[in-house]
């Protein structure tokens, strides 16, 4: 028999599950978004989260943020790639924009992060700098890793995503070291919901997750840019013909994914210890949620992610050693259910 469950513990587990579940929702939604627009299964989504937490923790400790160097180096590489592509094309169009996006923005952010942050800098500013650096990294990674092979089949893109994940995890170990970190709570204190004590941090995470989901919904539903991304998702070539550049769509999507990852990292930092390689499992759990939603539907992915969070919380109470086993084995019945519910679709490769 496992430990005894009572109402208080039940309440805590639900709270715990909802907190992590809310972060998984963000990751799941982001994965669905990236997949629908670019056909990339963004395995490195979790690295955005881990890098944000680790960078914020570093800024709090007063360490020089290693992410700044990665950002500048990757930015230079992205710019060089754009430059050589422009030379091959024989046209200088877009070089100025690339110089801003890949050189100037990273340089400014790195300078601020390295020299502009002191012990007295408010937490909000540190968070802002952290998020800005992670967001800037998004389009750079798309440019460097995926843009040269954007037309490849989803399976090759998936392998590339895994390869990028390897690079980032190795870089993360070098830049942040092997120690785990927690960041200081964004909000202290607790309140009562249904006569259960609930920490304000939990409420903040839930509210932020809900808010961000609504914002994404509005972005894709009502703005021109959001509609352009959806057009690319439906038909890449068709979208290009009407003037929506697939490169631009990819980079914008990666910026959004990085933003969601950075926010998730800021939110989860105070409640979970994050290591340089924590991103992988976080991302994959978002993934299990996304798969429950079939990698296509936003609300279903969110529900799935919440379920994963709750399942994880309860399995860590009853069988904590088997937590990962339970969460990742869940995918088998889920896939079975989905494969029975949906007729197999013919897929031609190459």
């Amino acid at each position: 028999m496992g430990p005894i469950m009572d109402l208080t513990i039940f309440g805590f587990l639900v709270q715990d599950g909802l907190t992590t579940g809310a972060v998984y929702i963000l990751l799941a939604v982001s994965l669905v978004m990236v997949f629908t627009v670019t056909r990339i299964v963004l395995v490195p989504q979790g690295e955005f989260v881990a890098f944000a937490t680790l960078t914020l923790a570093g800024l709090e400790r007063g360490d020089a943020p290693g992410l700044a160097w990665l950002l500048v180096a990757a930015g230079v590489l992205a710019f060089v790639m754009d430059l050589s592509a422009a030379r091959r094309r024989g046209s200088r169009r877009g070089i100025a924009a690339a110089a801003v996006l890949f050189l100037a923005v990273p340089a400014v952010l790195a300078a601020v992060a390295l020299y502009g942050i002191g012990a007295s800098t408010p937490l909000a500013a540190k968070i802002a700098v952290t998020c800005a650096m992670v967001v800037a990294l998004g389009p750079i990674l798309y440019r460097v890793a995926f843009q040269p092979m954007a037309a490849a089949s989803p399976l090759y893109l998936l392998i590339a995503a895994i390869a990028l994940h390897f690079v980032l995890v190795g870089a993360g170990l070098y830049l942040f070291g092997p120690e785990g970190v927690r960041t200081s709570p964004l909000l202290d204190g607790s309140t009562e919901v249904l006569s259960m004590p609930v920490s304000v941090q939990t409420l903040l995470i839930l509210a932020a997750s809900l808010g961000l989901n609504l914002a994404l919904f509005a972005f894709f539903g009502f703005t021109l840019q959001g509609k352009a991304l959806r057009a690319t998702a439906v038909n890449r070539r068709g979208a290009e013909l009407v003037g929506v550049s697939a490169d631009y769509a990819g980079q914008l999507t990666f910026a959004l994914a990085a933003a969601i990852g950075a926010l998730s990292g800021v939110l989860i930092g105070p409640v979970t210890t994050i290591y340089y390689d924590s991103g992988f499992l976080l991302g994959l759990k978002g993934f299990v949620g996304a798969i429950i939603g079939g990698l296509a539907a936003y609300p279903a992915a969110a529900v799935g992610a919440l379920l994963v969070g709750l399942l994880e919380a309860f399995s860590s109470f009853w069988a904590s050693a088997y937590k990962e086993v339970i969460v990742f084995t869940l995918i088998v019945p889920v896939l079975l259910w989905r494969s029975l519910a949906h007729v197999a679709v013919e897929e031609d490769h190459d």
Partner: protein
Amino acid sequence: MTDRLRGPLPWLIVAALLPLVLGPYHVALFGYIFIAALVTLGIVLLTGVTGLISFGQAAFVGIGAYTTAYLTTTLAMSPWLTLPVAVVLTAGAAAVIGAVTLRMSGHFLAIASLAWGISIYFLVGNLPYFGGFNGLSGIPALTLFGIDLRGETAMYYVILSFLAASIWAVLNLLDSRVGRAIRSIRHGAALAESVGADPARLKIAVFVIAAALAALAGWLYAHHQRFVNPTPFGIHMGIEYLFMAVIGGVSSVWGAVIGALVVTLMKQALEDLLPSLLGQSGNFEIVVFGVLMLLVLQHARQGLWPWLIERTGVRRAPSRVAADPMPAIRAKPEPGEAILRIDRVRKSFGGLAAVDELSFRAEAGRVLGLLGPNGAGKSTMFNLISGVLPVSSGEIRFLDRRIDRERSRVLAAQGMARTFQHVKLVPSMTVLENAALGAHLRGRHGLLRAALRLDRAEEARLLAEAAYQLERVGLFAQRDELAGNLPLGQQRILEIARALASDPVLLLLDEPAAGLRYKEKQALARLLMRLRDDGVTVLLVEHDMDFILGIADRLVVMHYGRKLADGAPREVQANADVQLAYLGAD
């Protein structure tokens, strides 16, 4: 000289001599490289040949390794008994996982493989019978007829033997009737179905074979290392195996060996070099592998092996096959007998009736043209007959059997053969192999006989039949070219040869002239007229009236899903309604 380097035998001799020149450390290392090559061999089958991706092969290696580790240490079983247990257990696990995930499109298997890769790692690491994350030690060395195979050199030869035998079996398998069907899967399940193969079953079979190879690798690993813990079976290793295959060249068996060799040696070198270079310890080599993978994916997606082949200029020897038809497998109906009856068939998509109460017949030994302007519903009708779509109402009978709910695979077995409007060939197979794919149902040897090369007599007959059909359509001289290198006109003709190789009662041609140049159209028309004179029954869907007039015995003209005319070509051509539909004149 290069001729001698062509076959695998010299390389096997080189491998067999390696322990004479290498120190014990490197002999052991090569043992691990060949174990990895067994796993990547499975990945070549899975990814390169069939188009499926798994990051979870390391978990299968783990099941194999832990099975023998547990049974030999706890129950003191002989390792030679645990080998079949390990393989069967792993294959069983793969069959279950495959049945669940392979029905879905490609990336679901890949994602699910990440999940089971993680899950099995944590499961093994937490189960007390398996020693947790500390693992199991004291695994006995192999013995054979009383000879102790302890030590790296003896194990090296054991591993090399298993690898050589596995490569031999996989090469045999790919060069067989089932192998051709497997190689066709990634070019669309519709192609495999059209020749009567079952792509879903074949996919599971390939997945199970890949898992069995991984289990064999795990068994060897356990008795090589004589100690197991969960780390080498985790998701990182699973990803690395895939990287090895992609870097080596995922579409070739030899790419698997090259990839395992290059990646393992590089990993060794980097593990020594990087920590001292960076002043930190940690597995930084993954950064190098990640970058290398991205470069390979962006610039040389085929991997190292094809690149090496190109450099050495190795070419295939011409095939020595002679054209020789197989005996017919079924009695042909009398000329004039109605073999296909379409009776008040209707197909609607939502509210739109693409085919509306259409009835007509096709008679044996005649060429029937189904004609109509674009959007007339011809392709829908073709898909209804060929079993790609089910009818909404009405009846289709083929040789007096009702077929309107049958799948294309079943129809192929009943003597219906088809071509595709968008040519579906296996570009990496030769013209001869593509034609032989059509004769799939005229052979019966399965995976095992193919792998052990017990299928040669039947294989020779199938290839002779394919050669005969190539001769018949005029492609015999091109038999050794890769189908992907043929111009479109010849690709279309190859599709017809493939269809003929099935000894069909009815040949369905879906817009065979579409996209062809004038000369190619003429060549195709001559071929079709020759087939008509041979008494082949053809149903030809076409929108090009000029092309079809000289070929068809009878024409059925469709317009907006309905039948507009039905009769001899000249009558139909003179029909005022048909002219209106075609010319749009008021």
